[in-house]
């Protein structure tokens, strides 16, 4: 027969300070774990949502990153005429040849310099990528020194309000719109017309070409055709895969740190739980004796104490998750070393992470409670009641 749960609840209330300190210790471990996972999660999703699996992304062969790449105008024209490119509502192919440079800009409020991506596009770029929308203002007018900026950029750099002027490449550029791009890294960028940027920055070469496939299932065939074409000299990537890979290294570091730091903290918290549970067992020797003599089996006693440890841990886990909830959505930044530019992203706490946090807490509780619970189960009635 099982020992009623109410017994555990009352026992915990009997020694509130010790229950709470143990739970709070675990809460902080869970908070650190979840917040670091949220950091890595937010970083990865900013990059992942940048790419679409319907799009193909072309770079000069061997370049590996937009910053290193160069594609001549002739090659860009060849690509635009390919048959497997999807058509937009106006019947024009959904292809965007883009220039890509990185410039230094002063952050808002004396936060030092940051490297920012300036992407030269054509108006087709807004259709090639899904989820792109102008939040405020309008798109740039071809042939003018106008730019639109991502919404994350707009929050982090001065003069980025509509009508503001930003100076780079020795020119003043007028901000005419703010855009959103589903939380992707595009939101940290400045977009203007490629034809305007070319003479200012790199001459008559594009950095990359992105197009939408009319049949995404045929990516392998398209890749083969493009890479074998002697006029092009390009590597073809699925856009989503390309951006996913950009974050791999930093993501691994963050995940490793989350597990490493939280793991070490967990060891400390488990020791605390062991202490608490041993003390609980020691102070309740009489009760255990009574339980056993009432006919509860040793394994009932054991599972009851394990359950009690689990309760403390889950309380801690819940408090820990509540503690970190405020960081959700907090924007921070790091450098995307592939493009050498600042990438702003937000902490992202998902239900899955909360679940991981609770599982983490439960594991700590069970490990910490195991030895003390076994000690309780091994108590002999005669010894327990003698004292």
């Amino acid at each position: 027969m099982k020992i009623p749960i109410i017994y555990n609840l009352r026992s915990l209330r009997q020694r509130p300070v010790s229950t709470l300190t143990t739970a709070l210790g675990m809460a902080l471990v869970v908070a650190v774990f979840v917040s670091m996972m949220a950091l890595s999660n937010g970083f990865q999703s900013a990059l992942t949502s940048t790419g679409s699996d319907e799009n193909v992304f072309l770079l000069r062969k061997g370049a590996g990153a937009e910053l290193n790449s160069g594609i001549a105008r002739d090659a860009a024209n060849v690509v635009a005429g390919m048959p497997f490119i999807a058509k937009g509502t106006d019947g024009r192919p959904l292809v965007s040849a883009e220039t890509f440079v990185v410039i230094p800009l002063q952050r808002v409020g004396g936060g030092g310099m940051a490297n920012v991506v300036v992407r030269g596009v054509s108006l087709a770029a807004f259709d090639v990528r899904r989820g792109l929308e102008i939040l405020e203002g309008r798109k740039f007018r071809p042939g003018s020194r106008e730019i639109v900026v991502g919404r994350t950029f707009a929050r982090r750099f001065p003069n980025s309000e509509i009508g503001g002027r930003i100076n780079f490449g020795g020119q003043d550029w007028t901000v005419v719109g703010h855009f959103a791009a589903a939380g992707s890294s595009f939101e940290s960028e400045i977009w203007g017309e490629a034809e305007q940027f070319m003479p200012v920055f790199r001459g008559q070469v594009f950095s990359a070409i992105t197009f939408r496939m009319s049949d995404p299932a045929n990516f392998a065939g398209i890749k083969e055709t493009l890479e074998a074409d002697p006029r092009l000299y390009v590597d073809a990537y699925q856009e989503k895969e390309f951006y996913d890979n950009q974050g791999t290294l930093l993501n691994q570091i963050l995940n490793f740190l989350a597990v490493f730091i939280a793991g070490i903290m967990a060891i400390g918290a488990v020791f605390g739980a062991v202490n608490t549970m041993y003390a609980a067992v020691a102070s309740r020797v009489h009760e255990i004796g009574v339980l056993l003599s009432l006919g509860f089996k040793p394994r009932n006693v054991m599972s009851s104490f394990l359950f009690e440890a689990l309760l403390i841990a889950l309380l801690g886990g819940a408090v820990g998750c509540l503690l970190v909830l405020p960081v959700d959505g907090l924007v921070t930044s790091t450098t995307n070393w592939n493009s050498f530019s600042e990438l702003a992203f937000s902490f992202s706490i998902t239900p899955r992470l909360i679940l991981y946090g609770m599982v983490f807490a439960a594991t700590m509780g069970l490990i910490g409670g195991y030895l003390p619970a076994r000690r309780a189960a091994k108590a002999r009635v005669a010894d327990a009641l003698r004292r």
Partner: protein
Amino acid sequence: MKFARLVLANLGRSKRRTILTALSVTVAFFLFASLRSILTTLDANAEVGSEARLIASSATGITFPLPQAHINRIQAVEGVKSVSWSNWFGGVYIDQRNFFAQFAIDSDSYLAMYPELLIPEDQRRAYLGERTAALVGAGLMERFGWRLGQTVTLQGTIFPGDWEFTIRGVYTPENPSFGDESFYFHYDYLFERTNRQVTPGWFTIQLDAPDQAAAIGSRLDALFENSSAPTKTETERSFQAGFVTMWGNVSLLVRAIGTAVFFAILFVAANTMMMAARERVGEVAVLKTLGFQNGTLFGIVMTEAIIICVVGGVIGIGLAVMSMSSFRAIQSFLPGFSVTPGTVWLGIGIAVVLGAITGIVPALQASRLSVVEALRRV
């Protein structure tokens, strides 16, 4: 001191509890020392650049090249001792994951400017005498198991094609924070193989005296302001500090985690001390009856708490010192990664404070205990 045995006896009263508490303090201080070392190493790396050298890069952006013609004009500026030029190569060795920095340098002027690169004399001559030679950091040699005289192939990303280099020299840095995982080769090789298409990525300028850095920097920028390639000149130190900040707000992250660790362990240790105190109510009452003063009892309980925390702290920091310096992988990211004496002392200080905080409640309880009340319960 005469109560030392009493304190020890108390600690030994529940050995398991004492050890578990000390161990949880140990892991906390292991983390503390490791995390703080990340910060001190980042700071040290930001300081490694010289104040007597300037870096002039393109004002348009760090990735934009500068014209060769700037060199002579810089050389002519008063207070400039010598100029060297370099380029970022960005090649891939077998796989993208094997990242390391590669620089094409104008070797004669560059090596003269950098006495902090220690190279055996015969290797220096061998390197300087061969067009496709490479000068490689000792750490990088170790990382890939390279040998002197070996030929390595890098795939160019910015400069297409396969590039072969023969390792002719190995350097060790004078200061570990400088890093020993860079790969240098001759700018001339890059220049010739790209059909003279390449121009320098940045200039390194050695000054006659460091106190002129700011003045000469702005004079150079003014000189090129209206040219086709304006420059941005700063001291090497601030140039490198700029890269360190690119990782993002590491210090805030580390501090936040450090605070969480501190409080987590504070809860664990405080809980234990209170449990220990609760068990000893009767004992303390007896001691009082025997004539122990309140202050003495306060001190005894406090000492006990501080001992647990300091012992745990010292072991944790010691473990960090031992494990961190032997951890090779981390040196690639954080050259010169080590636990500084400052971290050790700060850690011990925090351990004492931690002990005092955890001990204060039980110590006060012990000193204020009313004998009559306590003995009634016995």
